[in-house]
């Protein structure tokens, strides 16, 4: 009973934060809403008897990734996102896609409600760190190694990207190095901003 109450509490929090994420035009407000979604989902993972995943959710998502996102938003000093000022037909695309996905969600809900197996398995030791670590380093050793290599590649790629850009200290130098394309682009976007 307590689990059900907590589930609906945090499910409401997650959906409200997600709607706030899409609604707000300021990227910083969106980022804070996304942190709300992550924390609500971590609480729902706890009601699902998965404490390890809940801890990793807070550490990796709310801790590492969102700090990076907020750092980039503050570094770039972004203006408000005036959504869809040029492409009006995307309203219909987005509305249609949302409608289709919602119908699918209700279909899945209905089908799973009708399915015979509804009882939760009472084995609560599955989500414990001990079990996850044991199967991570025995049965799923190769995927874990591959993920490690992938993270190394991402780190090297990020370092190379930053290093090449920081050789030219200002915008103009970078643009000349990359064949003058960026420079004309900058002028164009400046003109567009002046028109607005």
């Amino acid at each position, binding site marked *: 009973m307590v689990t059900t109450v907590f589930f609906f509490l945090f499910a409401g929090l997650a959906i409200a934060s997600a709607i706030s994420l899409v609604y707000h035009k300021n990227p910083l407000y969106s980022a804070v809403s996304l942190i709300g979604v992550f924390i609500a989902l971590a609480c729902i993972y706890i009601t*699902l008897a998965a404490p390890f995943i809940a801890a*990793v959710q807070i550490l*990796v998502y709310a801790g590492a990734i969102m700090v990076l996102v907020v750092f980039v938003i503050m570094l770039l000093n972004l203006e408000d996102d005036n959504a869809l000022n040029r492409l009006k037909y995307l309203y219909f695309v987005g509305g249609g896609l*949302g409608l289709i996905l919602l119908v699918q969600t209700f279909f899945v*809900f209905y089908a799973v409600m009708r399915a015979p197996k509804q009882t939760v398995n009472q084995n609560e030791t599955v989500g414990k760190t001990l*079990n996850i670590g044991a199967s991570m380093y025995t049965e799923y050793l190769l995927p874990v190694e591959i993920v490690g290599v992938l993270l190394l590649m991402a780190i090297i790629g990020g370092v190379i*990207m930053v290093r090449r*850009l920081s050789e030219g200290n200002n*915008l103009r130098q970078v643009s000349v190095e990359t064949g003058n394309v960026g420079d004309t682009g*900058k002028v164009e976007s400046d003109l567009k901003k002046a028109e607005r």
Partner: protein
Amino acid sequence: MEPSLASYLALSGILFTIGAVGVIFKRNAIGMFMCIELMLNAVNLTFVAFSRYYADVTGQLFVFMVMSVAAAEAAVGLGIIIAFFRNRVSVDVDDASILKN
């Protein structure tokens, strides 16, 4: 009494829908990036729910893999966004149209 598996799947589907609609409505590269993270989290929720209801640890391990890939994606994606901003002084995806002409 526990919430049924269908409730978790419904929550996941609703979150995924909001994320997918957000990717189309947002014109800001960072906003789109955050909506993609929301969709990844919705899928993670289904993995954990099935892992709970079938008492199988595989789902939770796959969630771990998804989180690692999301971290790598964040590092590379934000690097690309910064590089784009340095060239165009904007993160509006409509300005990323050099290849069109």
